[in-house]
């Protein structure tokens, strides 16, 4: 294949078609990471069972009960956030004709992604053995919660359940007797699995480009979560005891905390590592008397007297704003940053310059802010090209143009709730 001439910012994944059977977070996010960089991602969904993220409180209005019943599928902000740049077809996989159309689409696709429970693809007749018959070099990616095999494979598991099993949740908390926090207020395991699935997919695409071969990839969400926790698993074996919650304590830094600032519920993160950084920190504060306390002279001393040190630092930070403290410490080469909420982030000049938030025109919402690209590629950056698709918005393109179904036949299939 010859590269297109004069195309200064090509989309690096534009050659690839991905069929996205994902629902909720993990599957759709993996597919979106590919769509953002140019893959043609076709989301297969159905009114017979809406993607859970098409349900819930709508962007406009207060009809929560109606939202939960699926009355506002085009007004779900989180859905818009992780399904942009995709095409949508409505296809009822509970019908034989719907499955046949899915097979025809898969035969013309490079990648199929799903986060179904174990066994669902087999029941649909769309497991890897079958898909290979349709398309010998296809890449099939499955993202089961706990795995396709194993004694707990059928356990009902959402992200927090997986985080609980992985060990991660056991260290989200404060030291001492405080009730464990546990929750990270993020669909952590979904995201971790999505990222690994996207990574394995592009690695497999490169492999296919070099060998001509496709493959089946399984990314269990529990294993993806655990794969980032090697330090704790080794710590457990090296010390003979499992790690405990430690709040913001870190043995390589002191001070190291989110400290309270002058306004209510405003905080600043400060991390001081080496003795040289401590000297810079003291200079930034104007050498207050407590900085000269011999107990704080070296790192071991600061770590041993952390409670006293934290009290001194907090008394100082409490007189200033997070931004003033950050500006002053960074000017002295000390790591500091306001603990930002989404308003701070949205208005932050650094995040604005890096296009952390971008707006796109959505037909039902108007101008809508979405998250930007999480990584900046200088020559082939990708980006937001289209908003999240309306339910079945691309039925004509996919069924008529790609699969050659006539308009009359499409009408019949819609009537029969196959294209539905």
């Amino acid at each position, binding site marked *: 294949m010859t590269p297109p001439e004069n195309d200064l910012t090509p989309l690096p994944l534009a050659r690839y078609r991905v069929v996205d059977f994902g629902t909720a977070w993990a599957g759709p996010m993996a597919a979106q990471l590919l769509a953002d960089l140019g893959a043609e991602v076709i989301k297969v969904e159905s009114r017979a069972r809406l993607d859970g993220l098409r349900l819930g409180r709508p962007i406009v209005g207060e009809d929560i009960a109606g939202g939960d019943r699926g009355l506002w599928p085009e007004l779900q*902000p989180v859905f818009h956030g992780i399904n942009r740049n995709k095409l949508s077809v409505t296809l009822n996989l509970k019908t034989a004709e719907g499955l046949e159309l899915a097979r025809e689409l898969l035969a013309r696709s490079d990648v199929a992604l799903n986060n179904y429970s174990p066994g669902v693809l087999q029941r649909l007749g769309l497991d890897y053995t079958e898909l290979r018959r349709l398309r010998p070099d296809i890449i099939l990616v499955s993202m089961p919660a706990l795995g396709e095999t194993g004694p707990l494979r059928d356990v009902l598991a959402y992200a927090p359940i997986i985080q609980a099993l992985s060990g991660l949740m056991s260290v*989200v908390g404060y030291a001492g007797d405080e009730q464990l926090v546990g929750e990270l207020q993020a669909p952590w395991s979904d995201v971790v699995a999505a990222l690994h699935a996207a990574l394995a997919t592009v690695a497999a695409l490169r492999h296919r480009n070099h060998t001509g071969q496709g493959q089946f990839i399984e990314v269990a969400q529990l294993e993806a979560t655990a794969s980032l926790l090697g330090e704790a698993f080794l710590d457990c074996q090296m010390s003979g005891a499992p790690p405990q919650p430690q709040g913001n304590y870190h043995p390589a830094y002191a001070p190291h905390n989110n400290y309270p600032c002058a306004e209510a519920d405003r905080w600043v993160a400060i991390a001081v590592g080496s003795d040289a950084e401590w000297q810079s920190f003291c200079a930034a504060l104007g050498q207050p008397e407590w900085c000269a306390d011999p107990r704080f002279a070296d790192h071991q001393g600061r770590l041993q007297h952390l409670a006293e040190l934290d009290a001194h630092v907090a008394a100082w930070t409490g007189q200033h704003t997070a931004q003033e403290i950050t500006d002053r410490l960074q000017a002295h080469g000390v790591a500091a940053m306001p603990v930002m909420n989404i308003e701070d982030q949205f208005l932050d000049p650094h995040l604005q310059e890096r296009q952390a938030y971008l707006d796109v025109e959505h037909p039902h919402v108007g101008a809508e802010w979405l998250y930007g690209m999480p990584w900046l590629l200088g020559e082939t950056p990708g980006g937001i090209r289209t908003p999240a698709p309306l339910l079945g918005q691309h039925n004509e393109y996919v069924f008529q143009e790609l699969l050659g179904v006539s308009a009359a036949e499409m009408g019949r299939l819609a009537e029969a709730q196959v294209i539905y």
Partner: protein
Amino acid sequence: MQPEPSPGALNGVRVVEWGSLVSAPFCGKVLAELGAEVIKVEPPGVGEEARQRGPFPAGQPHPERSGLYLFANLNKRGITLNLQSGPGRELLGRLLESADIFLENQPLPLVEELGLDYAALKGQYPRLIVTSISPYGRSGPYRGYRGSDLTANAMSGLSFGTGHPHREPLTTPLHQAGYLAGVGAAFASIVALLGRDLTGRGQLVDVAEAQVIGTLLTGYHLPTYIYRGVAGFRSGNRMRLGLFPNCVLPCKDGYICIDAPQIEQYRRFLALLGEPDWTADPRYRDRRAMSDQYPAEAEALIAPWFMERTKAEILQACLEQRIPCVPVQTFDEALADPQLNARDYFRPVEHPWTETYRYPGPPYRLSGAPARLLRPAPTLGQHNREILGNELGLAEAAISHLERAGVI
């Protein structure tokens, strides 16, 4: 006929890593287990900073026994090079001639001073992909700011919402910002390789830890702010904006996590508690209100049932009734987890300086190009002669000279 064992999906990709601590080393580890050849460059004498960090066996520091280093550097070969010296940089330059990806997470002033930033490299190595991971990114007004995992989490928006309302915000534990940025950088680097097939050119892959975790993990924050005007708050042991029950609660011997959004799951849970009539009371039927408006009251209703039971008893009962509720496993329990072990997830790794420990394995199972476990993390300078001698063609006398001069 058995097919030949696959050398990995990234067979033939060459990576030179100048990484320290978590993000770039873990990115290198991920690329290596997918089949790339990764050469890690460390300063002579002490090696990279992770070697000074724990965890260590019995808490005794030793540069070849850091759990962080051992984990984040699996499958690589390692050399020492003093990049402050001209000969050291020249040898790095020779390695970059045959490299596809140069991977670093060093402080920007140092990178620029040594002429190892993308702008300085791209003239000589037009096909090279430079993957640069940093707390806040390589562009923007904070590009030169100092940072750590704590401050990256602070900028990401994750810390603000994590923790109890009456306490300070909690950073994400266990350097998760760095690990996740490492995986993201691996993804973006492979995309850049696929992009190079189209353009013929390398490029800068600029990965900010704060932005990776901030963008991917905070999907609810932006719309909640834009449409509801809520900038953020901490809700402790309960997931906000969900459906009750969705929280972490104490039990007889630890904690459990329950997350049962479906109404059938809630009904089965109430039946298990012996309280099926609660859904008749509007106050305990509106699970969105229970989660958002009076969670403490709602949790107090179910807390006693958990406090009377152990983790094992709760898991058994909830498995039988198909209720999404499991123990919060500590790391020793996760190491013994029957599901992970039935799938041989943990891999024993032998290392010359440590006992054989069980490491978490790669999370992707690729049928045609399985991820690999080739070798443990390198000891400091372990592959100096193999790489500088055999591969760059330096004579033994020249290598000895470089050693004496402190270049390697």
